[in-house]
Protein backbone atom coordinates (compact mmCIF):
# COMPACT_ATOMS: atom_id res chain seq x y z
CA UNK A 1 0.00 0.00 0.00
CA UNK A 2 1.38 3.47 -0.84
CA UNK A 3 2.69 5.57 2.04
CA UNK A 4 0.18 8.01 3.53
CA UNK A 5 2.53 10.93 2.78
CA UNK A 6 2.28 9.95 -0.87
CA UNK A 7 -1.49 10.03 -0.66
CA UNK A 8 -1.46 13.49 0.92
CA UNK A 9 0.85 14.81 -1.76
CA UNK A 10 -1.23 13.36 -4.60
CA UNK A 11 -4.51 14.61 -3.15
CA UNK A 12 -3.06 18.12 -2.83
CA UNK A 13 -1.91 17.89 -6.44
CA UNK A 14 -5.15 16.37 -7.74
CA UNK A 15 -6.85 19.67 -8.77
CA UNK A 16 -3.81 20.62 -10.86
CA UNK A 17 -3.68 17.15 -12.38
CA UNK A 18 -7.36 17.47 -13.27
CA UNK A 19 -7.02 20.80 -15.08
CA UNK A 20 -3.66 19.94 -16.66
CA UNK A 21 -1.41 22.49 -14.95
CA UNK A 22 0.70 19.95 -13.00
CA UNK A 23 4.35 19.81 -14.12
CA UNK A 24 5.58 16.75 -16.01
CA UNK A 25 7.52 15.27 -13.08
CA UNK A 26 4.56 15.83 -10.73
CA UNK A 27 2.23 14.16 -13.20
CA UNK A 28 4.57 11.20 -13.64
CA UNK A 29 4.87 10.80 -9.85
CA UNK A 30 1.09 10.97 -9.46
CA UNK A 31 0.40 8.44 -12.21
CA UNK A 32 2.84 6.04 -10.60
CA UNK A 33 1.13 6.50 -7.24
CA UNK A 34 -2.46 6.12 -8.45
CA UNK A 35 -1.52 2.94 -10.30
CA UNK A 36 -1.26 1.32 -6.87
CA UNK A 37 -3.73 3.38 -4.84
CA UNK A 38 -7.40 2.99 -5.69
CA UNK A 39 -8.56 5.71 -3.32
CA UNK A 40 -6.30 8.39 -4.82
CA UNK A 41 -7.11 7.16 -8.34
CA UNK A 42 -10.83 7.62 -7.71
CA UNK A 43 -10.21 11.07 -6.22
CA UNK A 44 -8.17 12.21 -9.24
CA UNK A 45 -10.75 10.71 -11.63
CA UNK A 46 -13.52 12.48 -9.77
CA UNK A 47 -11.81 15.87 -10.08
CA UNK A 48 -10.90 15.18 -13.73
CA UNK A 49 -14.55 14.45 -14.50
CA UNK A 50 -15.46 17.72 -12.80
CA UNK A 51 -12.92 19.59 -14.95
CA UNK A 52 -14.40 17.93 -18.06
CA UNK A 53 -17.92 18.91 -16.97
CA UNK A 54 -16.83 22.56 -17.21
CA UNK A 55 -16.63 22.09 -20.99
CA UNK A 56 -20.40 21.51 -21.06
CA UNK A 57 -20.88 25.14 -20.01
CA UNK A 58 -19.51 26.51 -23.26
CA UNK A 59 -22.31 28.03 -25.34
CA UNK A 60 -23.39 25.84 -28.26
CA UNK A 61 -23.15 27.54 -31.63
CA UNK A 62 -24.17 26.23 -35.03
CA UNK A 63 -21.17 25.99 -37.35
CA UNK A 64 -21.18 27.74 -40.75
CA UNK A 65 -23.40 26.34 -43.52
CA UNK A 66 -21.95 23.28 -45.21
CA UNK A 67 -20.02 22.09 -42.14
CA UNK A 68 -22.00 18.88 -41.74
CA UNK A 69 -21.59 17.85 -45.38
CA UNK A 70 -17.86 18.66 -45.29
CA UNK A 71 -17.36 16.43 -42.25
CA UNK A 72 -19.42 13.62 -43.74
CA UNK A 73 -17.43 13.85 -46.98
CA UNK A 74 -14.20 13.45 -44.98
CA UNK A 75 -15.69 10.39 -43.30
CA UNK A 76 -16.24 8.75 -46.67
CA UNK A 77 -12.45 8.47 -46.99
CA UNK A 78 -11.38 5.22 -45.33
CA UNK A 79 -9.62 5.92 -42.03
CA UNK A 80 -5.86 5.94 -42.20
CA UNK A 81 -4.68 3.00 -40.15
CA UNK A 82 -0.99 3.15 -39.55
CA UNK A 83 0.59 -0.26 -39.42
CA UNK A 84 2.91 -0.61 -36.51
CA UNK A 85 6.36 -1.45 -37.84
CA UNK A 86 7.76 -4.21 -35.70
CA UNK A 87 11.49 -4.23 -35.19
CA UNK A 88 13.70 -6.55 -33.15
CA UNK A 89 15.01 -5.48 -29.80
CA UNK A 90 18.20 -7.18 -28.67
CA UNK A 91 17.91 -6.54 -24.99
CA UNK A 92 15.25 -5.78 -22.48
CA UNK A 93 16.16 -2.23 -21.68
CA UNK A 94 16.07 1.14 -23.35
CA UNK A 95 19.80 0.83 -24.06
CA UNK A 96 19.02 -1.83 -26.66
CA UNK A 97 17.00 0.38 -28.95
CA UNK A 98 19.85 1.66 -31.11
CA UNK A 99 21.03 -1.89 -31.75
CA UNK A 100 17.45 -2.88 -32.50
CA UNK A 101 17.24 -0.25 -35.21
CA UNK A 102 20.50 -1.50 -36.72
CA UNK A 103 19.29 -5.10 -36.89
CA UNK A 104 16.00 -3.92 -38.36
CA UNK A 105 17.94 -2.47 -41.26
CA UNK A 106 20.54 -5.20 -41.92
CA UNK A 107 18.96 -8.53 -41.08
CA UNK A 108 17.33 -10.42 -43.91
CA UNK A 109 16.47 -13.60 -42.08
CA UNK A 110 12.83 -13.16 -41.13
CA UNK A 111 12.55 -16.34 -39.11
CA UNK A 112 15.65 -15.54 -37.08
CA UNK A 113 14.35 -12.04 -36.63
CA UNK A 114 10.94 -13.20 -35.46
CA UNK A 115 12.51 -15.66 -33.08
CA UNK A 116 14.81 -13.08 -31.53
CA UNK A 117 11.98 -10.58 -31.34
CA UNK A 118 9.73 -13.02 -29.49
CA UNK A 119 12.58 -13.98 -27.16
CA UNK A 120 13.33 -10.36 -26.41
CA UNK A 121 9.73 -9.50 -25.69
CA UNK A 122 9.42 -12.55 -23.45
CA UNK A 123 12.51 -11.48 -21.51
CA UNK A 124 11.34 -7.90 -21.26
CA UNK A 125 7.71 -8.77 -20.58
CA UNK A 126 6.80 -6.59 -23.53
CA UNK A 127 4.05 -6.69 -26.13
CA UNK A 128 5.59 -4.95 -29.13
CA UNK A 129 8.03 -2.38 -30.38
CA UNK A 130 6.85 0.17 -32.92
CA UNK A 131 8.54 2.79 -35.06
CA UNK A 132 7.18 5.74 -37.02
CA UNK A 133 8.85 8.46 -39.07
CA UNK A 134 9.23 11.83 -37.38
CA UNK A 135 7.86 14.46 -39.76
CA UNK A 136 9.05 18.08 -39.78
CA UNK A 137 6.70 20.96 -40.72
CA UNK A 138 5.97 20.48 -44.42
CA UNK A 139 6.08 16.70 -44.13
CA UNK A 140 9.83 16.10 -44.62
CA UNK A 141 11.21 13.20 -42.60
CA UNK A 142 13.43 14.40 -39.76
CA UNK A 143 14.04 11.22 -37.76
CA UNK A 144 12.36 8.23 -36.16
CA UNK A 145 10.32 7.73 -33.00
CA UNK A 146 10.37 4.30 -31.37
CA UNK A 147 7.77 3.17 -28.90
CA UNK A 148 7.72 0.12 -26.69
CA UNK A 149 4.64 -1.42 -25.11
CA UNK A 150 5.67 -3.20 -21.93
CA UNK A 151 6.31 -2.72 -18.24
CA UNK A 152 7.34 0.02 -18.35
CA UNK A 153 6.41 1.39 -21.76
CA UNK A 154 8.95 3.80 -23.20
CA UNK A 155 9.67 6.12 -26.11
CA UNK A 156 12.92 6.92 -27.87
CA UNK A 157 13.31 9.77 -30.35
CA UNK A 158 16.13 10.04 -32.90
CA UNK A 159 16.56 13.18 -35.01
CA UNK A 160 18.60 12.98 -38.24
CA UNK A 161 21.72 15.01 -38.93
CA UNK A 162 21.18 18.18 -41.00
CA UNK A 163 20.23 21.85 -41.04
CA UNK A 164 16.62 21.14 -40.29
CA UNK A 165 15.04 20.96 -37.80
CA UNK A 166 16.82 23.94 -36.26
CA UNK A 167 19.18 23.11 -33.37
CA UNK A 168 17.92 23.65 -29.86
CA UNK A 169 16.12 22.10 -26.93
CA UNK A 170 12.93 20.31 -27.94
CA UNK A 171 10.17 19.38 -25.52
CA UNK A 172 8.81 15.88 -26.12
CA UNK A 173 5.08 15.21 -25.71
CA UNK A 174 3.02 12.05 -26.06
CA UNK A 175 -0.55 12.58 -27.26
CA UNK A 176 -2.98 9.90 -26.19
CA UNK A 177 -5.94 8.70 -28.23
CA UNK A 178 -8.13 10.91 -26.03
CA UNK A 179 -6.01 13.90 -27.00
CA UNK A 180 -4.31 14.28 -23.62
CA UNK A 181 -0.80 15.75 -23.80
CA UNK A 182 1.76 14.06 -21.60
CA UNK A 183 5.08 15.87 -21.18
CA UNK A 184 8.07 13.50 -21.56
CA UNK A 185 11.15 15.63 -20.97
CA UNK A 186 13.55 17.13 -23.52
CA UNK A 187 15.81 16.22 -26.43
CA UNK A 188 18.82 18.35 -27.36
CA UNK A 189 19.07 18.61 -31.16
CA UNK A 190 22.34 19.74 -32.82
CA UNK A 191 23.38 19.83 -36.49
CA UNK A 192 24.65 16.28 -35.95
CA UNK A 193 21.14 15.26 -34.89
CA UNK A 194 20.09 14.15 -31.45
CA UNK A 195 18.32 11.44 -29.50
CA UNK A 196 16.70 10.80 -26.18
CA UNK A 197 14.23 8.51 -24.53
CA UNK A 198 12.61 7.53 -21.28
CA UNK A 199 9.93 5.40 -19.65
CA UNK A 200 6.49 6.91 -20.09
CA UNK A 201 3.72 7.09 -17.45
CA UNK A 202 1.04 5.54 -19.72
CA UNK A 203 0.75 2.44 -21.88
CA UNK A 204 2.32 3.00 -25.27
CA UNK A 205 -0.75 1.48 -26.94
CA UNK A 206 -2.69 4.53 -25.69
CA UNK A 207 -0.30 6.87 -27.50
CA UNK A 208 -1.46 8.07 -30.91
CA UNK A 209 1.26 10.64 -31.57
CA UNK A 210 4.64 11.78 -30.25
CA UNK A 211 5.55 15.44 -30.77
CA UNK A 212 8.71 17.48 -30.46
CA UNK A 213 8.09 21.15 -29.71
CA UNK A 214 11.14 23.17 -30.64
CA UNK A 215 12.31 26.75 -30.37
CA UNK A 216 10.52 29.17 -32.67
CA UNK A 217 6.94 29.57 -33.75
CA UNK A 218 5.31 26.53 -35.37
CA UNK A 219 8.45 24.40 -35.03
CA UNK A 220 6.63 21.15 -34.23
CA UNK A 221 7.70 17.69 -35.37
CA UNK A 222 5.38 14.73 -35.07
CA UNK A 223 5.22 10.95 -35.43
CA UNK A 224 1.82 9.26 -35.62
CA UNK A 225 1.20 5.75 -34.29
Amino acid at each position, binding site marked *: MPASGGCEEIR*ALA*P*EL*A*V*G*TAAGDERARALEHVAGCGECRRYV*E*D*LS*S*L*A*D*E*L*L*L*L*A*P*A*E*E*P*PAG*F*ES*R*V*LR*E*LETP*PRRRTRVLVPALAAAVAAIAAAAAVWMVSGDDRDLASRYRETLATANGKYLAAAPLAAPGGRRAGIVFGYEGEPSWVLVTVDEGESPPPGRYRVQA*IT*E*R*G*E*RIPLGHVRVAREGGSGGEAIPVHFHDV*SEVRLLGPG*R*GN*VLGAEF
Partner: protein
Amino acid sequence: MWSVSDEALLDGFASGDPEAAAAFVRRFQARVFGLARTIVGDPTSAEEIAQEALLRAWRHGAAYDRRRGRVETWLLSITRNLAIDHLRLRRTEAMDPDSMSAREAMFMRAPEDPGGAARHEVTALRNSLALLPPEQRRALLMAALWGFTAIEISEIEGAPVGTTKSRIRTAMLKLRGESGVADAG
Protein backbone atom coordinates in the same frame (compact mmCIF):
# COMPACT_ATOMS: atom_id res chain seq x y z
CA MET B 1 -32.68 8.12 -34.80
CA TRP B 2 -32.90 11.00 -32.30
CA SER B 3 -34.00 8.69 -29.51
CA VAL B 4 -30.79 6.67 -29.81
CA SER B 5 -28.43 7.09 -26.85
CA ASP B 6 -25.17 8.96 -27.34
CA GLU B 7 -23.22 5.74 -26.70
CA ALA B 8 -25.16 3.74 -29.29
CA LEU B 9 -24.82 6.55 -31.78
CA LEU B 10 -21.05 6.65 -31.20
CA ASP B 11 -20.87 2.88 -31.75
CA GLY B 12 -22.65 3.25 -35.08
CA PHE B 13 -20.57 6.31 -35.99
CA ALA B 14 -17.26 4.56 -35.26
CA SER B 15 -18.29 1.43 -37.13
CA GLY B 16 -18.93 3.40 -40.31
CA ASP B 17 -22.74 3.40 -40.44
CA PRO B 18 -23.54 6.44 -42.65
CA GLU B 19 -26.91 7.13 -40.99
CA ALA B 20 -25.36 7.06 -37.52
CA ALA B 21 -22.50 9.25 -38.74
CA ALA B 22 -24.89 11.92 -40.02
CA ALA B 23 -26.93 11.78 -36.81
CA PHE B 24 -23.80 11.94 -34.63
CA VAL B 25 -22.42 14.97 -36.45
CA ARG B 26 -25.83 16.69 -36.36
CA ARG B 27 -26.27 16.00 -32.65
CA PHE B 28 -22.88 17.28 -31.52
CA GLN B 29 -21.66 19.78 -34.11
CA ALA B 30 -23.04 22.87 -32.35
CA ARG B 31 -21.50 21.89 -29.01
CA VAL B 32 -18.14 21.04 -30.59
CA PHE B 33 -18.01 24.18 -32.73
CA GLY B 34 -19.25 26.33 -29.81
CA LEU B 35 -16.49 25.09 -27.52
CA ALA B 36 -13.81 25.49 -30.20
CA ARG B 37 -15.06 29.03 -30.87
CA THR B 38 -15.05 29.83 -27.16
CA ILE B 39 -11.44 28.73 -26.83
CA VAL B 40 -9.83 30.04 -30.04
CA GLY B 41 -12.21 32.89 -30.92
CA ASP B 42 -11.62 32.83 -34.68
CA PRO B 43 -14.53 31.05 -36.48
CA THR B 44 -12.40 29.68 -39.33
CA SER B 45 -9.96 28.01 -36.94
CA ALA B 46 -12.87 26.85 -34.79
CA GLU B 47 -14.42 25.14 -37.80
CA GLU B 48 -11.17 23.31 -38.61
CA ILE B 49 -10.84 22.21 -34.98
CA ALA B 50 -14.47 21.06 -34.80
CA GLN B 51 -14.03 19.03 -37.99
CA GLU B 52 -10.83 17.41 -36.72
CA ALA B 53 -12.47 16.61 -33.35
CA LEU B 54 -15.33 14.78 -35.08
CA LEU B 55 -12.88 12.91 -37.32
CA ARG B 56 -10.88 11.84 -34.26
CA ALA B 57 -14.05 10.66 -32.55
CA TRP B 58 -14.79 8.62 -35.63
CA ARG B 59 -11.26 7.14 -35.74
CA HIS B 60 -11.01 6.45 -32.01
CA GLY B 61 -14.65 5.77 -31.18
CA ALA B 62 -13.85 2.13 -30.55
CA ALA B 63 -11.48 3.19 -27.75
CA TYR B 64 -14.16 5.20 -25.93
CA ASP B 65 -14.67 3.85 -22.41
CA ARG B 66 -18.05 4.81 -20.93
CA ARG B 67 -16.67 4.37 -17.40
CA ARG B 68 -14.50 7.44 -18.01
CA GLY B 69 -17.38 9.77 -18.74
CA ARG B 70 -20.19 10.63 -21.08
CA VAL B 71 -19.76 10.68 -24.86
CA GLU B 72 -20.38 14.41 -24.85
CA THR B 73 -17.61 15.21 -22.35
CA TRP B 74 -15.25 12.76 -24.12
CA LEU B 75 -15.88 14.52 -27.43
CA LEU B 76 -15.57 17.97 -25.87
CA SER B 77 -12.31 17.05 -24.15
CA ILE B 78 -10.92 16.02 -27.57
CA THR B 79 -12.10 19.39 -28.92
CA ARG B 80 -10.54 21.30 -26.03
CA ASN B 81 -7.18 19.57 -26.44
CA LEU B 82 -7.10 20.30 -30.17
CA ALA B 83 -8.07 23.92 -29.56
CA ILE B 84 -5.37 24.33 -26.89
CA ASP B 85 -2.77 22.85 -29.28
CA HIS B 86 -3.90 25.35 -31.89
CA LEU B 87 -3.53 28.24 -29.43
CA ARG B 88 -0.12 27.11 -28.22
CA LEU B 89 1.26 27.12 -31.74
CA ARG B 90 0.05 30.66 -32.28
CA ARG B 91 0.51 32.37 -28.93
CA THR B 92 3.24 34.89 -29.59
CA GLU B 93 2.53 37.55 -27.02
CA ALA B 94 1.18 37.76 -23.52
CA MET B 95 -2.61 37.65 -23.20
CA ASP B 96 -4.20 40.91 -22.15
CA PRO B 97 -6.16 40.54 -18.84
CA ASP B 98 -9.10 42.54 -20.28
CA SER B 99 -9.33 40.18 -23.24
CA MET B 100 -9.34 37.26 -20.81
CA SER B 101 -12.19 38.84 -18.84
CA ALA B 102 -14.22 39.29 -22.05
CA ARG B 103 -13.72 35.64 -22.96
CA GLU B 104 -14.70 34.56 -19.49
CA ALA B 105 -17.89 36.66 -19.69
CA MET B 106 -18.75 35.02 -23.03
CA PHE B 107 -18.24 31.60 -21.46
CA MET B 108 -20.42 32.41 -18.46
CA ARG B 109 -23.34 33.76 -20.50
CA ALA B 110 -26.62 31.82 -20.35
CA PRO B 111 -26.83 28.90 -22.80
CA GLU B 112 -29.04 29.28 -25.83
CA ASP B 113 -29.96 25.63 -26.26
CA PRO B 114 -32.30 24.44 -23.50
CA GLY B 115 -31.83 20.82 -24.52
CA GLY B 116 -28.07 20.95 -24.11
CA ALA B 117 -26.14 22.97 -21.62
CA ALA B 118 -29.23 23.97 -19.60
CA ARG B 119 -29.59 20.49 -18.13
CA HIS B 120 -30.09 20.55 -14.41
CA GLU B 121 -26.64 19.40 -13.30
CA VAL B 122 -24.92 21.71 -15.73
CA THR B 123 -26.99 24.63 -14.52
CA ALA B 124 -26.01 23.75 -10.94
CA LEU B 125 -22.33 23.70 -11.95
CA ARG B 126 -22.71 27.06 -13.69
CA ASN B 127 -24.30 28.52 -10.54
CA SER B 128 -21.48 27.18 -8.35
CA LEU B 129 -18.92 28.61 -10.76
CA ALA B 130 -20.67 32.00 -10.68
CA LEU B 131 -20.45 32.03 -6.86
CA LEU B 132 -16.65 31.67 -6.86
CA PRO B 133 -14.53 34.78 -6.22
CA PRO B 134 -13.67 36.20 -9.69
CA GLU B 135 -9.92 35.60 -9.37
CA GLN B 136 -10.48 31.92 -8.50
CA ARG B 137 -12.98 31.42 -11.31
CA ARG B 138 -10.71 33.10 -13.85
CA ALA B 139 -7.64 31.06 -12.81
CA LEU B 140 -9.65 27.83 -13.01
CA LEU B 141 -11.11 28.59 -16.43
CA MET B 142 -7.79 29.80 -17.83
CA ALA B 143 -6.28 26.44 -16.87
CA ALA B 144 -9.16 24.05 -17.59
CA LEU B 145 -10.48 25.71 -20.73
CA TRP B 146 -7.73 27.76 -22.33
CA GLY B 147 -4.86 25.49 -21.31
CA PHE B 148 -2.64 28.13 -19.69
CA THR B 149 0.05 26.87 -17.35
CA ALA B 150 0.17 28.15 -13.75
CA ILE B 151 3.16 30.33 -14.70
CA GLU B 152 1.31 31.86 -17.66
CA ILE B 153 -1.76 32.56 -15.53
CA SER B 154 0.36 34.21 -12.85
CA GLU B 155 1.96 36.45 -15.49
CA ILE B 156 -1.40 37.49 -16.96
CA GLU B 157 -2.97 38.04 -13.55
CA GLY B 158 0.09 39.62 -11.95
CA ALA B 159 -0.03 37.14 -9.07
CA PRO B 160 2.64 34.80 -7.66
CA VAL B 161 2.62 31.23 -9.05
CA GLY B 162 1.87 29.82 -5.59
CA THR B 163 -1.20 32.04 -5.31
CA THR B 164 -2.37 30.97 -8.76
CA LYS B 165 -2.04 27.30 -7.85
CA SER B 166 -3.95 27.90 -4.60
CA ARG B 167 -6.73 29.67 -6.50
CA ILE B 168 -7.11 26.76 -8.93
CA ARG B 169 -7.06 24.23 -6.13
CA THR B 170 -9.55 26.13 -3.97
CA ALA B 171 -11.90 26.71 -6.89
CA MET B 172 -11.91 23.02 -7.82
CA LEU B 173 -12.53 21.88 -4.27
CA LYS B 174 -15.37 24.40 -3.83
CA LEU B 175 -17.01 23.19 -7.04
CA ARG B 176 -16.70 19.66 -5.75
CA GLY B 177 -18.49 20.78 -2.60
CA GLU B 178 -15.69 19.97 -0.18
CA SER B 179 -16.35 21.76 3.07
CA GLY B 180 -13.76 23.69 5.05
CA VAL B 181 -11.86 24.88 1.99
CA ALA B 182 -9.79 27.91 2.93
CA ASP B 183 -9.99 30.83 0.51
CA ALA B 184 -6.95 31.51 -1.64
CA GLY B 185 -5.75 35.10 -2.11
